[in-house]
């Protein structure tokens, strides 16, 4: 029955491509409605007519809208994203550079959130009604309401300005100095992980509580299995489906949240790039960044679907 599953995944991949194309269309059309000519804004009020004409031609902004769109899409398939007006570089180059920094914040955050979130959630579910459950639930609720930017500023204030143990902001590439790199990343990674950690804790707890009531848990007990065996092999595996769903969504959300984190801590990532591009009206950059972020989210969703199939055999066999 494996081939049915493979077919389903392929179908989802094709769907994702269609969705991303739709994203490009929507983003492109929306950007066309923005008033203001990126070339003029870039060159400033002192630009001459010739200069404006020259650059407009250079970047292809004189072509009809449909052609501009077509060139962009075709370029994408070749791996090219066009040129940035403000940065005077190939956009794909810029995005690739920035992607590294963003991933260095997002990925460790996610892993931390997964490990601690699931652990706390299981602990809360197993000790239902006791103190540890209430504490964990309270902390989880708090974590989900926490405004990221505020927490960032709070941490900067305490750890950097008052206690002087961590740097205020900035980013050091790991190739240059690993220890400094980590020092600069501790606060951003820690803060970014809190929201998802809270969410995973809540979801794990409720999924485990659901599972605990199931008949097959009693069957497992009647076999004489030890408590841990039952938790790991019977309960957790069945609770994973809703947990994995939430994780997929959280990763997408985290990718968006990096915008705020990068802004506060001055990390040269994709989010920062997008903000500067918006402020300087560099449309091509904005379009491509949004596309990349959407692609990342689609990739996460696909991975989640793949994981569903691995975790739950019933899904492998169904439509």
């Amino acid at each position, binding site marked *: 029955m494996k081939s049915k599953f493979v077919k389903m995944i392929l179908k989802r991949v094709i769907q994702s491509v269609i969705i991303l194309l739709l994203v490009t269309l929507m983003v492109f059309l929306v950007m066309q409605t923005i008033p203001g000519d990126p070339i003029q804004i870039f060159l400033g009020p002192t630009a001459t007519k010739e200069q404006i004409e020259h650059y407009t031609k250079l970047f292809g902004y004189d072509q009809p809208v449909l052609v501009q769109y077509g060139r962009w899409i075709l370029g994408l398939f070749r791996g090219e994203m066009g040129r940035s007006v403000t940065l005077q570089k190939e956009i794909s180059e810029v995005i690739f550079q920035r992607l590294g920094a963003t991933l260095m914040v997002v990925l460790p955050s996610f892993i931390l959130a997964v490990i601690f979130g699931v652990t706390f959630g299981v602990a809360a579910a197993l000790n239902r009604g006791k103190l540890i459950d209430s504490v964990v639930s309270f902390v989880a609720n708090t974590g989900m309401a926490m405004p990221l930017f505020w927490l960032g500023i709070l941490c900067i204030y305490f750890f950097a300005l008052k206690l002087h143990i961590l740097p205020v902001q900035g980013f050091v590439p790991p190739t240059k100095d690993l220890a400094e790199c980590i020092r600069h990343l501790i606060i951003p990674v820690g803060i970014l992980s809190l929201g998802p950690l809270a969410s995973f804790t809540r979801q794990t707890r409720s999924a485990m509580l659901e599972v605990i009531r*199931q*008949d*097959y848990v*009693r*069957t*497992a*007990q*009647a*076999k*004489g*299995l*030890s408590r841990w065996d039952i938790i790991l*092999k*019977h309960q957790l*595996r*069945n609770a994973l489906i809703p947990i994995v769903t939430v994780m997929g969504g959280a990763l997408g959300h985290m990718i968006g949240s990096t915008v705020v984190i990068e802004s506060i801590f001055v990390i040269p990532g994709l989010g920062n790039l997008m903000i500067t591009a918006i402020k300087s009206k560099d449309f091509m950059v904005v379009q491509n960044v949004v596309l990349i972020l959407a692609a990342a989210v689609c990739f996460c969703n696909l991975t989640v679907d793949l994981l569903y199939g691995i*975790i*739950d*055999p*019933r899904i492998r*066999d169904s439509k």
Partner: protein
Amino acid sequence: MSQRLLEIHNLSIEYHAEDAIVYAVNGLDVSLDYGETLGLVGETGAGKTTTALSSMRLLPDGIGKVSSGTILLDGVDVMKCSDAKIREMRGNVVSMISQDPMTSLNPVMTVGDQILEVLRIHNKGLSKAELNLAVDAMMEMVGIPAYRKNEYPHQFSGGMKQRIVIAIALVCEPKLILADEPTTALDVTIQAQMLAMISELKKRLNTAMILITHDLGVVAQTCEKVAVMYAGEIIEQGTAATIFEGRYWHPYTRGLFGAIPKLDEESDRLEAIDGLMPDPTEKMVGCRFAARCKSRGSHCGQAQSMWEVEPGHLIRCCLFDVERGNAQ
């Protein structure tokens, strides 16, 4: 006195719900010898499943409490023994076949693995190959081809799922099987098959069994002894022969048999028993059936005892109070 397989003495079990206490079992006495089959009959809510669960110490954590009494299983005090000991006994000395096969199996584990699991825990010395052989043999014994052992529960029909449950229960050759309404959730056509298979396996492995059911017909087919439960108590006990013969009956049992349609008699209506079971959140003294009993009398309000109306046949009803000369 030789050891009996199961000896339950004055067992009382309470469920502590959020706003009330449910007195599920009240002063229950029952015992079983090695190799015997006991049919435990009663309506829903009589306390049959609760009694069975308690003999494996499987009452819901924190909610179910044994408030009094002792349970001796194969000589071991189930309530007082260590966690390790009771786990050693579960699946191995005593096992359970639960009611609903659709939900009793772990949906994300192969059926082979689920049978293997219980075998492995209680047979640490066996090698992987030996374990697999045993699993295959067990599957064949319940009528499922061994090549299907890497499939998942959702790929089997209800009847086949129940066979897997039976395989899990029997693979370690336990001394006692608790079969909680094993055929209720299945089609009528499969029921007979399933019962026949359970009986045969029981004979082959020389296991004792407590068959919980509300269906007297099933009891007649498979059980040597019968116990009738009502509102948390055993109100009648005897061999299948004496109970089905019907010379003496507790009024409730009379009602149960009266409600069975008979093909060889003419009648207008089935006899039903008026009223409902008493509220389990109220503690009662005296006969719990009195409110619905047609033969209600003045002594019904006092605590009732068991009376031996004929050899091997006990009834808990003041109507049979020999001393008072009230025997029917």
